[in-house]
């Protein structure tokens, strides 16, 4: 298999391991430095370094291949390294809860965009009503917690499920329209939802919902600082770790769905509905299933937000937020789970860092969006063909073990 070839080219042994961890540590330091730096110097240095690295690696393919092979060869270690570094984030950002909050916000966007990606990236269904679906999740969780005092785990779950249910409301338009028309359907829906929420009494109208209980799991309140014995972390560390946990779970789920028949089916529907139909795919059933599934992710992120901030109101779920979500998916790379994470990171955290240029921020945001799309129209991390090596390996392994056992019996 191709994998073996890569292994030959990789740095082996301790050198490879050190390189893997070294790369992770450098990237981590570069990113964390952006947060800790009050001004924008680090950001500028980082951008220059990133550009230099891209240019360098484009010319020097061999080295790039070697490094990626090394990372692949040390996968386990690489993952452990990533997890440890991610767990360390609240320690690094101990002094600036603000940035921790922004990181969590980016995490929530990742969560929503993983769902949006199932719709838009995998299945090719445009959804410009992401924020409206987030509102369903947020208001469901908020109203249930406020009016009935339900526990957090239940309201989060309800937020996700109710959003999924409500998205069935849109099933006729979603199944009957495509492309630009579907885009317009979702835009119209987005505006309808926000206006309605603003004009209805029981949603709190324009003043929204106040004093939504903050997260509390079986008596453990997320609103208290996180005391680890040797150090007391800011209360947002609770939310951070919970976001991380959810993101890992949802990311793995999304990754697994991608690498399964569901992913293949979705991609076929996206690329050619007619071909899918003549191969026995129930296009409508799958479109609806994946649309609902994606909205559940989005709804969960909304429910999470309402329990983290404790206050939601209609402007939280305006059209421009839907646009940001779509930008994340397209910019990060359609149908690529890692791309979503990179996209959310860039589009949520960079503008926040760009605050030092105040007035020109949005103008630059627009320009950067254009430039990125022109030079990297398939996203920063484009779609990669599915690989079944892992699943097949897994089955072969099992088969082999089975044979050994059988052989043992016969003898």
């Amino acid at each position, binding site marked *: 298999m191709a994998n073996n070839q890569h292994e030959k080219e990789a740095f082996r042994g301790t050198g490879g391991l050190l390189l893997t961890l070294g790369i992770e540590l450098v990237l981590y330091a570069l990113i964390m430095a952006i947060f800790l730096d009050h001004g924008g110097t680090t950001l500028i240095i980082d951008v220059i370094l990133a550009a230099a690295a891209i240019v360098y690696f484009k010319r020097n393919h061999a080295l790039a291949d070697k490094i990626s092979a090394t990372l692949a060869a040390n996968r386990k270690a690489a993952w452990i390294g990533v997890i440890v570094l991610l767990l360390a984030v609240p320690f690094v950002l101990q002094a600036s809860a603000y940035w921790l909050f922004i990181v969590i916000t980016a995490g929530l966007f990742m969560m929503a965009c993983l769902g949006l990606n199932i719709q*838009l990236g995998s299945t090719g269904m*445009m959804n410009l009503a992401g924020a409206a679906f987030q509102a369903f999740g947020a208001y469901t969780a908020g109203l249930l917690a406020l009016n009935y005092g339900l526990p957090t785990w239940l309201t989060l779950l309800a937020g996700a499920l109710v959003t999924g249910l409500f998205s069935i409301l849109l099933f*006729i*338009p979603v199944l*009957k*329209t495509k*492309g*630009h*028309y579907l*885009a*317009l*359907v979702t*835009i*119209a*829906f987005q*505006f*309808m939802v926000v*206006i*309605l929420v*603003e*004009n209805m009494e029981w949603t709190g109208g324009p003043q929204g919902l106040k004093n939504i209980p903050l997260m509390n799991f079986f008596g453990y309140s997320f609103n208290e600082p996180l005391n680890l014995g040797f150090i007391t972390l800011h209360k947002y560390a609770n939310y951070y770790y919970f976001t991380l946990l959810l993101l890992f779970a949802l990311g793995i789920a999304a990754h697994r769905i991608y690498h399964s028949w569901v992913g293949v089916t979705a991609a076929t529907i996206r690329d050619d509905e*007619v071909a899918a139909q003549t191969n026995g795919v129930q296009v409508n059933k799958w479109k609806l299933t994946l649309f609902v599934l994606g909205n559940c992710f989005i709804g969960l992120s909304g429910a999470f937000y309402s329990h983290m901030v404790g206050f939601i109101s209609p402007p939280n779920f305006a*059209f421009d937020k839907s*646009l940001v979500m*779509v*930008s994340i998916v*397209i910019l990060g790379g*359609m149908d690529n789970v890692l791309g979503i994470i990179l996209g959310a990171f860039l589009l949520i955290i960079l503008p926040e860092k760009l605050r030092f240029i105040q*007035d*020109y921020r*949005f*103008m630059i*945001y*627009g*320009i950067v*969006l*254009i430039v990125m*799309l*022109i030079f990297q*129209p398939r996203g920063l991390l484009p779609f990669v063909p599915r690989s079944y090596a892992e699943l097949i390996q897994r089955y072969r392994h099992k088969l082999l073990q089975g044979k050994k056992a059988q052989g043992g019996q016969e003898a």
Partner: protein
Amino acid sequence: MSVLDMIIQQSINGLMLGIMYSLVAVGFTLYFGVLNVINFSHGDFFMLGGFMALILYGIADTLGWTQNVPLLIIYLFLGSMILTALIAIITARICVKPVSKAPMLISLLVTLGLGIAIREAVRVFYPRGSDPKGFPTLLPQGSLSIGNIVIRYENVIIFVLGVLVIVVVNYLITKTKMGMAIRAVAQDGEAAMMMGVDLDRTIDITFLIGAAVAAVAGIMNGFYYGQIMFNMGAMMGVIGFSASVIGGLGNVYGAIVGGILFGLLETFAAATLPMGAENKRVFAFFIVILFLVFKPTGILGEKVYERV
């Protein structure tokens, strides 16, 4: 005021609102027809047209050219159309052309980014750009009363001018050689290129016409409402897009039908439904969704059999 008077008066209101929407919708139809692009920055060119006219008026005012009103109006329209179109062509060459072959999503997002950049540039670079700006009153302000119904001269002028602009656009793209080229590109870009149509030039011309019409709409909007604002294009873009779909994307007259229908829907929803004023857009957008589901080709669009 009797009920009938009220209905007539509200219809006039709806028509006026509708013609504003139509003028924006025609641009969407044009871009879609030619480039198969939903140009989300169109609403912002509409806004830009208004601001260009305001700048030109400021220049005229300081030079004391405000005596001859008809000439002044022509100067504002022409000047703003040319300037807006120039900016449109330049930005199209830089941002839209490189992605014209990319998937629809990309072009959609690029135009969105362009819209944000234009909107913010106006806000940042125009003096006190975030405030609403008063627009000069140049059209005759009198009115005509028939019974209880009041028709303002200004409204008649704007309405006639609006219809005229759309008729001219239709003439340009259906009857002239240039228009033929545009439509050939719309049908099949590659085939058109083989037959000697200059694709780049066609894109330029499309943006020229589209932006010029947007500029006209922006100025008329300024005359009608007496103010313009940097963010007025955002919502107008969404409504213009909706109107062009209701009318039938690709059909220029569809823009008139769609725009006026949307205007009338909003007006009567606000006038008749309980809580109508605040929920009229909900109603209008609901109708848009119904259209998309049951008649996606719009009122004037032709039924197309999907080729398998």
